[in-house]
């Protein structure tokens, strides 16, 4: 059973560019969340997608957007990249049809984004 897979693993972009990160959830999971982990810090919640809709959003600007596809995979898009966007971006999947709080989030290995 494949876990959460993210691509690419590493990425270098220039300020002002746009980037797309991809995530395939664990088999059977229907919900995808994205987190940003800056160096030396804990992950910060960006947003969560369920049924192809953004269900909750953290304190991130509109430059950060996402999408969920019918097969539950997801993309994170960041426009007009800033140096401060350099971080490890983590995708987490879970099974939350209704709010089933007895489920845990499984994390991928992350995408290391460096903005130069």
């Amino acid at each position: 059973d494949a876990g959460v897979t993210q691509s690419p693993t590493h990425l270098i972009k220039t300020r002002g560019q746009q980037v797309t990160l991809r995530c395939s959830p664990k088999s059977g999971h229907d919900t995808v969340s994205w987190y940003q982990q800056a160096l030396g810090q804990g992950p910060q919640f960006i947003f969560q997608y369920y049924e192809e809709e953004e269900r909750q959003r953290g304190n991130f600007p509109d430059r950060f957007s996402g999408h969920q596809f019918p097969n539950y995979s997801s993309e994170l898009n960041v426009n007009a990249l800033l140096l401060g966007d350099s971080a490890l971006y983590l995708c987490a999947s879970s099974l939350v049809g209704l709010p089933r709080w007895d489920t845990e989030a499984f994390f991928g290995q992350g995408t290391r984004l460096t903005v130069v």
Partner: protein
Amino acid sequence: AQSVTQLDSQVPVFEEAPVELRCNYSSSVSVYLFWYVQYPNQGLQLLLKYLSGSTLVESINGFEAEFNKSQTSFHLRKPSVHISDTAEYFCAVRRSNDYKLSFGAGTTVTVRA
């Protein structure tokens, strides 16, 4: 406002010694609590979780954590650490009226021989 506080940013410890990582949270509603471990250049792995029931939860690799509602704490302990326990440990909270996980800043555990 910081809702999850990990009180120690770095914890050096000798092999086979005990270790305790402290975590406190703030919430006006009921919570679900988690400890995750992150090895260098990797994602997060769930170590253990408290959802309900017994306040003492254990993992398969010897870690345990105790939920203390009155002190709003969820400290992680291991009676005897190994070199392989060297990693970053994150405490996380999910409030019952929320979908997201809120993480602490992490505690770096370095185990020395």
